[in-house]
């Protein structure tokens, strides 16, 4: 079996399915198996110091085969050569390791068949040909115009323009012989840039991502980054403390991510230690989450809508829109297969689509109005280096970056030095002064394939979040980095 065409950027579905067929045949006597075939193409153009310097064209393939026995742990093998010998060798090794390790009486103690969700997941597709077919040469003019703008102002621009295409075929056979095949494909375009003063005295950033390159307003990005840099030159040091702070959408997204993570597992939410855990209910002999209770400002709602082309994330046919948060009340918790089955959730509640979401407000205030209504506060572009300080109280730290300004008496008066902050999204989203229009932001990229276990992961998620004004945002110290 030979699979890879030299000129193919991605494996096609039929090639991946041949791999799966072969594995299934080799492991026909194994009790439970899973196979995923991932294929990825990534192309990007990078520039720095006002010059394009690097263009990358990367192709990856990964086959992961898992076998489980007695309902317990298992053996997992992955490889990227998909000829018959490699597949055979991998399957032989799996059988060898399974026989060696699983003669013991391991059991997960959950020897039951899960009632699987009923959605049709045969075609997850978040695809745009314009993104996939984008040629590196097409980016050149864009990079030239961006860098010329910066150079003409005596500034330095660095950035990258990325396009990615990926697909996935996943297969499972459970102990009852039920087989399930999933397919998915996605594209992702991303462009971001930082414009800096050559003496390091100012920095501005702008970026955006979408599955559809056509949805990114490339010309605007350069102008915004440049403007932010010019506005941020020679920042002054002000005292750390609590400030009424306007977080631009990119900054909001960092905290919204941490917040949404709290809703990702029903099981965890019903355990001590989760910030959305309510307490132990002796009547039902289990913990209760804050489902149905207020957990955020009454204006805030968070939804996942698979049919929204802008959020364009998990297009599972037949999966309904989910509202995690409605008017500040926790209305749904994400649940995996096992949780779905155990909790006997309705099809609306069960979901594996926690990463893409939209945060909206029932009352919208413009950023200009937020600024003019601020007596003394800060305007923040984005944050970086976000790391946990205390998990149970969802307390995080990080630093501000690429544009922070002081607002006095309704006007932006000066650029200020960056701060280290210490804050909890649970506190923030309950101390909201005003909320703006929601817009898509640049998602945080992670290493590897966008599909993991059949879920579209961070590489292709979309967050739609608003500018948000928070009271008493906690800045704990100044940092030297500009």
């Amino acid at each position, binding site marked *: 079996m030979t699979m*890879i065409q*030299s000129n193919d950027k991605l494996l096609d579905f039929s090639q991946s399915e041949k791999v799966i067929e072969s594995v299934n045949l080799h492991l026909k006597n194994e009790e439970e198996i899973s196979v995923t075939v991932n294929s990825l193409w990534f192309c*990007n153009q990078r520039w*720095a110091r*006002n*010059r*394009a*310097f*690097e*263009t*990358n*064209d*990367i*192709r*990856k393939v*990964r086959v992961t085969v898992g076998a489980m026995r007695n309902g317990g*742990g298992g*053996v*997992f093998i992955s*490889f*990227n*050569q*998909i*000829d018959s010998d*490699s597949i055979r060798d991998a399957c*032989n*090794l799996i059988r060898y*390791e399974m026989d*060696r*390790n699983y003669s013991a009486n*391991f059991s997960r103690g959950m020897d039951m068949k899960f009632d699987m969700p009923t959605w049709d997941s045969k075609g997850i597709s978040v695809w745009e040909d314009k993104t996939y077919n984008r*040629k*590196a*040469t097409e*980016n*050149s*003019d864009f*990079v*030239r115009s961006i860098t*010329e703008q910066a150079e003409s102002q005596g500034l330095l621009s*660095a*950035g*990258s323009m990325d396009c990615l295409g990926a697909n996935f075929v996943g297969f499972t056979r459970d102990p009852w012989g039920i087989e399930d095949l999933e397919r998915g494909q996605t594209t992702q375009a991303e462009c*971001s*840039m*930082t414009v800096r003063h050559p003496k390091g005295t100012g*920095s501005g*950033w702008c970026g955006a991502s979408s599955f559809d390159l056509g949805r990114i307003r490339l010309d605007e990005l350069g102008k915004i980054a440049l403007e932010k840099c010019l506005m941020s030159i020679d920042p002054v040091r002000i005292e750390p403390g*609590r400030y009424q702070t306007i977080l631009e959408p990119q900054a909001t997204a960092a905290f919204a991510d941490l917040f949404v993570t709290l809703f990702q597992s029903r099981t965890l939410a019903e355990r001590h230690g989760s910030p959305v855990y309510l307490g132990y209910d002796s009547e039902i002999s289990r913990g209760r989450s804050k489902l149905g209770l207020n957990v955020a400002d009454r204006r805030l709602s968070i939804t996942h809508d698979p049919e929204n082309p802008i959020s364009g994330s998990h297009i599972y046919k037949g999966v309904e829109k989910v509202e995690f948060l409605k008017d500040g009340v926790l209305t749904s918790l994400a649940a995996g297969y096992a949780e779905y089955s155990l909790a006997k959730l309705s099809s609306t509640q069960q979901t594996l689509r926690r990463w893409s979401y939209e945060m909206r407000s029932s009352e919208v205030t413009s950023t200009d109005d937020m600024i003019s209504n601020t007596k003394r506060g800060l305007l923040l572009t984005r944050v*970086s*280096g976000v790391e946990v*300080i205390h998990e149970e109280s969802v*307390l995080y730290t990080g*630093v501000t970056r690429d544009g922070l300004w002081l607002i006095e008496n309704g006007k932006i008066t000066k650029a200020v030095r960056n701060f280290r902050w210490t804050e909890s999204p649970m506190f923030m989203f309950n101390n909201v002064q005003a909320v703006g229009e929601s817009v898509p932001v640049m998602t945080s*990229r992670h290493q590897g394939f966008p599909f993991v276990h059949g879920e579209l992961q961070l590489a292709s998620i979309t967050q739609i979040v608003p500018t948000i004004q928070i009271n008493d945002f*906690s800045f*704990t*110290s100044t940092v*030297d*980095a500009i």
Partner: protein
Amino acid sequence: MISRRTFFSGSGAAFAASIVPRSGFASNFEFQELPSSQDARMKMLIETAVDSAKSAGATYADARLTFDQFMMIKPGSTTLEGRGFPPYNRSENMAFGVRALVNGYWGFASSPVWSKEEAGRLGAAAVDAAKANLSAKQRHVEFAPNPNSTSGDWVMPVVDDPFDMDSEEISDFLDGLVFYLNHLHQEYRRPLGRCGSDIVTQYNRQQKAFGNTENQYVTQRLFRTGGFIRLIYDSSGTGGHTSSGELKCFNPSGHGAGFEVIRRPDLREHCHALFEELVEEAKLPLIPVDIGKFNCLFHPQLVAPIAKRTIGIATEIDRVMGFEANTTGTSYIKHPNEELGILKVGTKDLNVTATRSLPGGIMSAKWDDEGVSPNDFAIVKEGLISDLQSGREGASWMKEYKSRLGKPLASNGCVYAIDAVEPPAVHTSDLIVQPNQSQDKSLSQLREQMENGLELNGGMCHMDFQQASGLIGNYSAFQIRKGKRIARYISPGILFKTPELWNSIMSIGGGSTSLRVGTFDYKQNPVRISYSSVDAPAVLFKDLSIVDPSKKA
């Protein structure tokens, strides 16, 4: 329709069987090695790629082939809840990457296919990628010569190649360790309460071949072995409060070593010592943080990540020059030619050397990913930043400084890619923070120097995007009075600025306090991961700012 095996079988089946890095999955039985540099067909793939790039217009090109194997083996763990499953993960990955330089623009193309056809395609694709920028503004690259370029083979010296061992032998050893820990759990049940342990071991082996348009061709075999043994105990007996401790002789980022780093002869002594340490800790009262300025004794487990971030990463020349400005950030060093040899980052006692020849170091290699044989070099000499981590392009950015010193334009050999599918970049080499040469001060001697302060034996170092200031948190810390530990602090934090920290060194521990710590870092777009070792001694600092990181403003 090309794959690894069809290509090689097309080249002659009998020979193919001896040349193909046959799947490690057929292992335990018949693994065959990557061929040596003398092997005509391995060399042919590299040559085809660079020739293709050259004929397409590259002024310079290089090509890499990597074959990576990874194994994660975990024994049936003993947790507070009981015995768990022994999961087993294994992977192998083959990659082919070609990099080409055209008119000052770099192009890179990579894929998992090892074939002559693909070699030709990748060479041309790398040039096409570089040429995509030809309509952009012209870029000048001064590529430092590599006068000592050599060809050859190198194998990282290891005692036990884990991929030549039967995985059962590894599992047996780990199962034996679990039985021993169970015995210790019983022994220490009274002082510590219920105990559990978590053991994970990970093994990586990489075989790589590199060649370039300068007729250089090298092959290397590299290893990284790591993991952790974590002891978890519930001193309350109710599940209300658990504490844990980790064995410090190996860590998740690993060492440039084989299975010997796990099967070390003193492992049981280390385990026993860790239990003893936890018992001593458990006797001490837990107290809230004292805010203020205090002298602090850092164990090497904390000195190492701080040195990596504030000195290692900060001296990567691409960061200094702004090439990472849009992703992971720049550096507090802004102008190499103006600041090198002048910027005072620490006291005269601070000396840090970058090396790729450290026995057991993760970044140990005979050649970097540009074919340069790296020399050890001082990054910090008597407290002054004296050099930067560079490759052949970046070397020219320090030309003026090197010329003042009468040194030739040369790469420091810091270019690295974790595998051939990722484009190479400058990454931090292994680092050695020089211990006290005049007096081998032990940890307890350093502690005795403290009248009133803190002792920290590990932790997280949260840095800003220029490595200029940071917050240390999430570690266990002790209150020291008159040279003795008298209490445990609940998660204090330390706020610091890089030069202020290293300029507040009171005393550096001797060689006996030094420990090798594995560290991890990455660059972005695309993500480029690297691991490196840091050898660091214990260090006593004066008047650091202690904060409660869990307190908001």
